[in-house]
């Protein structure tokens, strides 16, 4: 770990300890996504317990605030936590919601923010580490914080994902190759030097049984579906399955979901997340079926830490789903991991491993960089199309940007090339999320069959940096793209 990151780590930790100790909150409302990442960095990486921290049952994500039961937030101090306030619109929105709609008095609200910009309209901050920062300095600190998150294991990943830690007792490529039997994997290195693997569209074991469990009208076509593998320490990785089928944007029946998820059904957005958790958990089966032999040969150590364990991998779900039964959820994860480990794949059910290198200097790195900008450009394009509501771009829209669906492939090699391109795009999106350029969101979109469905989309993150990225992304063009300006004969 370099000096800048170590310094940032101690500063972030000190800031959080002070904020928690001084406010002793009953509730912590984290501003998605960096606010939550900030808290996770303390909870998951610090060796010392923090005064005022009682567990994830006191945390609410800003995304879940409106869904939180009315009786919650009625007692004790509420700490609003974010990494930085630039304009202050999001913090203002949260503050207004609490005071106006939930009737929480100001004296019960504490606001903690690691950095504040000199032009921030929301200046009523109780705890800050850096204040009155110029745009240049604000940007620098933001970059350092992001780098710190990356070093600690891509903490900017969405909070609603469940991860299972794996300790390697074999070389990394043996582990990666085993996982790549599920689909094409792209190995890339984060700016902080951590190794990541993104497996695009992993196969779904017992697919028909899984599809039957989904609400009617749901489609998995063009859905975000991947296995993310993120390095935590030298020989420790976490597997994070991500899978968001598009469910109808109407009332859905979720009674086929496991009992820890189905009672939480409410609005389409919530249903979308619940189906997403269920689907992602199903991918654990695929991941562990691929790792079966390595586990049997004692080359991997797998455990599913639950509530009470220091590296608890499920309780953080409470931030977004306050009513979720984490004990039951933990048992479900254990069951699926176990069933994957015991799954005997039929001949040909798993693929020969295909891993694409995306580290610096490789062909894949160049492709990743281009695709990352193509994705940002596409997101910028859709933001400009409806500036009032930057709805972001869906996976289908991003794949369309690749232009790979225009003509039919001519041979098997071309098919593979296109699949590799899609896998690289998926990894490029992961990089953009890790670098805090993009965040994932949910929007309703009308499909070609006329059905309106909830879809995972990507939009720009932050306030200050967004404007920079949008500006560059809007004018950036791939060197291979045809000229945009066409000079006609009449001039």
């Amino acid at each position, binding site marked *: 770990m370099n000096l800048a990151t170590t310094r940032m780590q101690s500063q972030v930790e000190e800031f959080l300890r002070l904020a928690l100790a001084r406010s002793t909150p009953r509730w912590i409302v984290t501003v998605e996504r960096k606010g939550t990442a900030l808290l996770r960095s303390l909870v998951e990486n610090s060796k010392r317990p923090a005064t005022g921290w009682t567990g994830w049952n006191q945390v609410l994500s800003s995304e879940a605030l409106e869904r939180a039961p009315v009786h919650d937030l009625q007692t004790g101090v509420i700490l609003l936590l974010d990494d930085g306030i630039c304009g202050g619109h999001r913090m203002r929105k949260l503050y207004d919601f609490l005071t106006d709609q939930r009737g929480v008095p100001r004296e019960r609200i504490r606001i903690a923010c690691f950095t504040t910009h000199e032009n921030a309209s929301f200046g009523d901050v109780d705890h800050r580490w850096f204040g009155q920062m110029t745009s240049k300095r604000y940007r620098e600190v933001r970059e350092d914080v992001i780098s710190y998150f990356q070093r600690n294991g891509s903490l900017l990943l969405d909070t609603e994902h469940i991860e299972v830690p794996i300790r390697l007792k074999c070389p990394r490529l043996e582990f990666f190759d085993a996982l790549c039997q599920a689909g094409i994997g792209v190995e890339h290195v984060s700016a902080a030097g951590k190794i990541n693997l993104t497996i695009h569209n992993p196969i779904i074991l017992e697919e028909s049984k899984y599809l039957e469990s989904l609400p009617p009208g749901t489609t998995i076509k063009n859905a975000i579906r991947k296995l993310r593998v993120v390095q935590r320490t030298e*020989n420790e990785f976490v597997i994070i399955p991500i899978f968001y089928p598009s469910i109808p944007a109407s009332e859905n029946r979720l009674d086929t979901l496991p009992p820890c998820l189905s009672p939480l059904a409410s609005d389409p957005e919530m249903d979308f997340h619940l189906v997403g958790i269920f689907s992602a958990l199903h991918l654990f089966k695929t991941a562990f079926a691929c790792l079966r032999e390595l586990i049997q040969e004692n080359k991997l150590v797998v455990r599913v830490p639950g509530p009470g364990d220091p590296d608890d991998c499920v309780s953080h779900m409470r931030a977004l789903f306050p009513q979720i039964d984490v004990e039951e959820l933990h048992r479900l994860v254990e069951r699926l991991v176990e069933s994957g480990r015991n799954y005997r794949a039929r001949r040909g059910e798993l693929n*020969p491993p295909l*891993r694409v290198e995306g580290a610096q*200097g490789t062909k894949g790195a160049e492709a990743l960089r281009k695709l990352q900008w193509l994705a940002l450009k596409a997101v910028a394009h859709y933001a400009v199309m409806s500036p009032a509501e930057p709805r972001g771009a869906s996976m289908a829209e991003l794949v369309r940007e690749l232009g790979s669906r225009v003509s039919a492939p001519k041979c098997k090699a071309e098919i593979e090339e296109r699949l590799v391109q899609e896998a690289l795009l998926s990894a490029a999106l992961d990089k953009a999320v890790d670098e805090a350029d993009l965040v994932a969101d949910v929007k309703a979109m009308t499909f070609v069959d006329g059905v309106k469905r909830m879809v995972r989309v990507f939009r720009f993150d932050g306030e200050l940096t967004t404007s920079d990225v949008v500006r560059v992304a809007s004018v950036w063009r791939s060197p291979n793209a045809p000229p945009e300006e066409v000079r006609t004969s009449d001039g």
Partner: protein
Amino acid sequence: MSRCHAAAIVFGFFLRKRYEVLRKREGVCEGLTKFDADKSMRLLDKLWEHRRNKAPRERQGRMVDFPVNRDFNDKHGHRIAYAAASEPGTARPVLFRPVLQVMQCFDEHSTLSGRLLTQVDQETLWGHVSVLRPEVSAAALMPLLECRALDNSDVFFLENLGEVCGELDDREVIAIGRHENAHATAESILWELRRWTEWAIDAFQALDGFITGSQTNTNFIAEALWQCWSFALEAKKKAALVPDDVYGSDRRFYDSAEEKLCRAVTVSGMDAQTKEEILHSLKSAQRPGCDIWGDPRVTTLRFAAFSCWAFSSYMAGAIRDMTSFTETLLVRRLASLSKEEVRDAFRTVQRCVQVARCQRPADFSPQWLTTQSFVPCELATRLVRPDALWDGSSNLSEFVAPCKEAGTWLMNEHVEPEIQKLRVQEA
């Protein structure tokens, strides 16, 4: 990180790229054989040194060549070796140690994530075989990029070269890895012949001991005979006799490797600059096959290599089928050598011992021997037919005495003068 370790990581990455292409093409590939890995690395060393813009790259502090000796002589041709190493576990200094051995040493002392190679053991028809699976991905090159020992173009070159080398099979990569010019090939053949001489002398002594009863260990004799045979085989393969036999010749694999590499580079999707750079390195580092095997320094060694090979097949093949040796490793190791081939070898040796150094042609081929009409000399007539040994009409001492004489004659007449000639040239 030491320069040796940095180079080992680069070699590991290159091997991984080759391995991945092989695995994809062949469906199942557990790893690369030691010879394959060794010669692939030697090929990389040669091509890396001949890349363009060496001086500016050197000024930037980049790794323009690897800290290896490329001409470390060994059984399967020149190997790359690190200098000034010491034997593991001892303080005994050695001048050079093959890179592959040092890489395995690094692995013993590194963490799992820093591992370069994994040894995978396999049971095959021939017995227990170990292959090496390279474990280095591009992520492992990051420290070298950070300290500017490499830059993006170096990684790009390595990745592309590794992938095109994946188009070669193991015999091709071994051939192009161990040959590059006539001088090195001639030197390498002579090295094999020198080892053949040493093992042949050991085998004669052991056989004498067995006859007199002072040597009872048949496995020791079997080992000497097998070493003798296999060094002769390597010399014959390197000398590239025309036409070649089932064991193949390096010339054939060298030519097909060169052609495949050029074709793979041309049809690959890499950019024109990288294509041009790889082709330039290939042309600068590797002489065409006709230049290597058409050179008099190599052609003059053909007879020596061929006669030693025939002699070894005759001696080892005949002894293999004796009852005293049926329990030895010789039976399995020489399983490919048929009785008919042993009989042929006997007839060839009978002819070879009649060819004096001044009589052999400048461009020798096995057909030349068959076209000559020899009046059998005394030594040729005394050589014992293999069948006579097998059916018991001749005993081992009757077989060994003329055999030893013929072997010594070949050494003195055809092998030693060539070795002396090279020594003089080198001096």
